[in-house]
C-alpha cells in the first residue's frame, strides 16, 4: 500500500503538536506503521511550524517533500499557501481562514496576500476553508482550533468516528476532553 503523507502547518504556539500526537497515536492503533516529525526549539517562538505525519504498511522517511502531501491541514491561511508546493496533484488543503500577520507584515516590510486561497483554488488545488477559530471559541476555547481542523479532516481517513473520539480521550488532558469532543464534532459536521 502507498504511504499517505499529511502535513500539519501553522504558527508556533497554535497547538500543532497535540494534533500530530492525536493523529499519530490513532493511526498506530489502527495498525499502520507511522512516522511523525515534529519541530521544537527556536522556530516555535511565533515562527512558521510544520509537522509531518506519514503512515502506511512500512514508512521510511519521516518528512514530506514537494508534490507529496495527500493532505495539508493548515491552522492559518498564509501557512497553507507557504506549504502548497508540498501538495500532491490530487491532494487536499484543509485550512482555517484565520489571518495571523507575520512580523514583516506587522512592521510594513511585506504585504499579506489576502486572496491567496482563491489563487490556489483557481489553479485547481482542492481547498476546503473553514473558520475554525469561531468554531473553537464556540466549543469553549480558541486553543481548540487544532481539534476542530482534525474533525474536519477526519472523514478522509477512513477511520470510524468512534475511534477518533477514543483517541481524543486517550490523548487530551482529562479536564479538556469534553470541550475537545465538542470542538471535534463542530469540525466534523462543518
Amino acid at each position, binding site marked *: 500500500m502507498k504511504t499517505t503523507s499529511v502535513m500539519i502547518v501553522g*504558527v*508556533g*504556539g497554535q497547538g500543532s503538536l497535540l494534533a500530530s500526537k492525536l493523529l*499519530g*497515536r490513532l493511526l*498506530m492503533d489502527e495498525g499502520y*506503521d*507511522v*512516522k*511523525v*516529525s*515534529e*519541530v*521544537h*526549539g*527556536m*522556530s*516555535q*517562538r*511565533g*515562527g*512558521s511550524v510544520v509537522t509531518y505525519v506519514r503512515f502506511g504498511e512500512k*514508512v*521510511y*522517511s*519521516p*518528512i514530506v*517533500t*514537494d*508534490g*507529496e502531501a495527500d493532505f495539508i491541514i493548515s491552522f492559518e491561511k*498564509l*501557512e497553507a*499557501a*507557504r506549504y*502548497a*508546493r*508540498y*501538495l500532491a*496533484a490530487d491532494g487536499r488543503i484543509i485550512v482555517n481562514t484565520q489571518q495571523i*500577520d*507575520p*512580523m*514583516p*507584515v*506587522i*512592521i*510594513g*516590510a*511585506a*504585504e499579506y*496576500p489576502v*486572496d*491567496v486561497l482563491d*489563487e*490556489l483554488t483557481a*489553479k*485547481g*488545488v482542492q481547498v476546503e476553508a473553514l473558520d475554525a477559530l469561531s468554531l473553537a471559541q464556540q466549543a469553549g476555547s*480558541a486553543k481548540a482550533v487544532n481539534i476542530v481542523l482534525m474533525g474536519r479532516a477526519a472523514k478522509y481517513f477512513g477511520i470510524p468516528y468512534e475511534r477518533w473520539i477514543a483517541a481524543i480521550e486517550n490523548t487530551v488532558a482529562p479536564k479538556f476532553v469534553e470541550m475537545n469532543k465538542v470542538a471535534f464534532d463542530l469540525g466534523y459536521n462543518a
Partner: protein
Amino acid sequence: MKKLMIGNQAVAAGLYDGGLGVVSSYPGTPSTEITEFLSKYEDIHSEWAPNEKVACEVAFGASLAGARSACAMKHVGLNVAADPLFTLSYTGVNGGMVICVADDPAMHSSQNEQDSRHYAIAAKVPMLEPADSAEAYAFAKAAFALSEQFDTPVLLRMCTRIAHSQSVVELGEHQPAVLKDYAKDPAKYIMMPGNAIKRHPVVEARTEALREYAENCPYNTVEYHSDEIGIITSGCSYLYVKEALGDTASILKIGMPNPLPVNIIKDFAAKVKKLYVIEELDPIIETHVRALGIDVVGKELFSLLGEFSQQTIAAAFGLADKPCVTADSPIPNRPPMMCAGCPHRGMFYTLAKNKITVHGDIGCYTLGAVPPLNALDSTLCMGASISGLHGFNAARGAEAEGKSVAVIGDSTFMHSGMTGLVNVAYNATNSTVIILDNSITGMTGHQQNPTTGYNIKGDPAAKVDLEALCKALGINRVRVVDPYDLKACETSVKEELAVAEPSVIISRRPCVLLKSVKALPTLKVEADKCKSCKRCMGLGCPAISMKDGKAVIDNTLCVGCGVCKQLCAFDAIV
C-alpha cells in the same frame, strides 16, 4: 508493547532499560527530551547540570563509582564537554557510560552545523548512530555493554530528524541498575603524564579491537538488491535513500560510524558497479572509503550543507520531480520572534533606542537581533557575550565602554557566563553586563536551573543568589530592574554605562509563558486618540499591528505587560 515515541524518548527508554543509574545533562535542542524523559523514572538519579562539561564529569564520576551512567547534549554542547571526553577515552570506564550527542543539520535551532562524528574519531571512542526510534532504543540499551566490553565511553549520535521524529518502538525487558564494585586504580584513573603515557597504547589497541568488532557489528547491515548501484549510508540518510530508491539499489547501512569497517566495505564495493556514499554534513564515511583506494561518488553529488530528503536523493539519481503548485503572490516570511509580553523586549527596546552596541548570547533573547529591534551586534556561543564585551572594550577603550553591553540569560550565565564576569572584574574593563533573568531556561522549553530554586523534578532546591554571586566575583555595582518599566531600564543602562567601573544590571521578570505567571488585563487602543505615529510598532510586539492606519492590539495575544502603553505619547493605549 508497541509505543509511538520520538527518538529522544526512545533513547531515554533504552538507557533506562539498559540499567542506567545516573544521568546528568544540560538542555540543548535537539537533545533536551532525553533527560526530561529520564527524569520521570523515580529509581534513578537525574539532574540538570549547569553545563555539559559538568554533566559529562558527573557521568564519569558515576561510572567510576560503578554505575551505568549517561549525559546528553546538543552538538555544540560536546565542544564544552570535549575536555573530559578526550581523557575519558584514556581512563575508560567502570560502569558503562554513554554520551548522547544530537546534531542539528539545517540549524533548526543552532548556531552552526558541526558534525559530531569528528569527535568520535578525534577522541578515539566508538559511536553508534540510529536511524529511527526503534534503533534509538536498541542502540542506547546495548551501548552500555559495548562500553564495558571495550572499557570506553560510547557516543550515541542523534540528529534533529531522528531525535524529534516519532516512530513505533517495541520495548524490551528492563535490566535493573547494578552498582559494580569500586576499587582504587590510580594507573587507570589518575591521568598524570606517567600514567597517561601508559594508557595511550591501551587506547590504540582498543581502537584495533573495535575495528575488528565493526566487521561483525550487528549495526552495520547490508541489503543486496542490485549489482549496478551500491549505496553506503547511515542515520536519516538511510531513510531517504529507502524512500526514494526502494529496492532498486544495494545498501550498506552504517550503524557504527566510528570506527568504520574495512572488509565489509571492500566486499560491498566489489559487488556493485557504481558506489555512492550518502551522508549529511561532512564526508566522514566517504574519506574512509577513498582511503581504502575505492572509487566512490560522494560530496560532488550530495551537499555538505543542511539536511537531505527523499527529494534530494531522487533528484541526484535523475528521477522526475513530482508536479507541484505554488501561489503567485509573494509569501512573506514568518520568522520566530519574542512572545507578546516577553520580559526581554523592554530592555532590548531601551538598548536599541540608545544605539548601544550589544554583545548577545544563546537563548530566546537572541531574537533581539530581528527587526524591528535589530538590537544585537554579535552572538557566538554560550557565555561569549561577557568575554566578548570585555575583549571589545579592551580593544576600543573608554569610548566603547560607555556604549557597549553584554546580555545573557540566567541559565546561560550559570553555564559559562560567570567565568567571563570574573575576567571582567579581574582584568578590569569598565564593562556593563545585563543578566536577563527570566527565572527559567526558556528556549529549550522551560527547564529548571541553579537560579530558579527548583531541580529537574520540580522539587525545591538550593537557589543561586545572583546579586550576591556577582558581588562575590568582584563586581561592586549590581542593581536589579523590572524590564516592564521602560524608565527604570533607561536610567539603569545610562547610569551603569557612565560609571568608571564594571557593573551588572539584573533585568528580572519571569518568562511570560510560565504557568506560574498570571496574565494581566489586556490592553486596547482607543482609535480616536491614536495619531498613527507607529511608535508602539517599534517594539516588535506580535500583538500590535496597524489596521486602517491605526494601531490595534490583538486581545488573544496581549498579556497586558504595559510596555506599549508607556511609549504612547497620546494616551491612546488603555
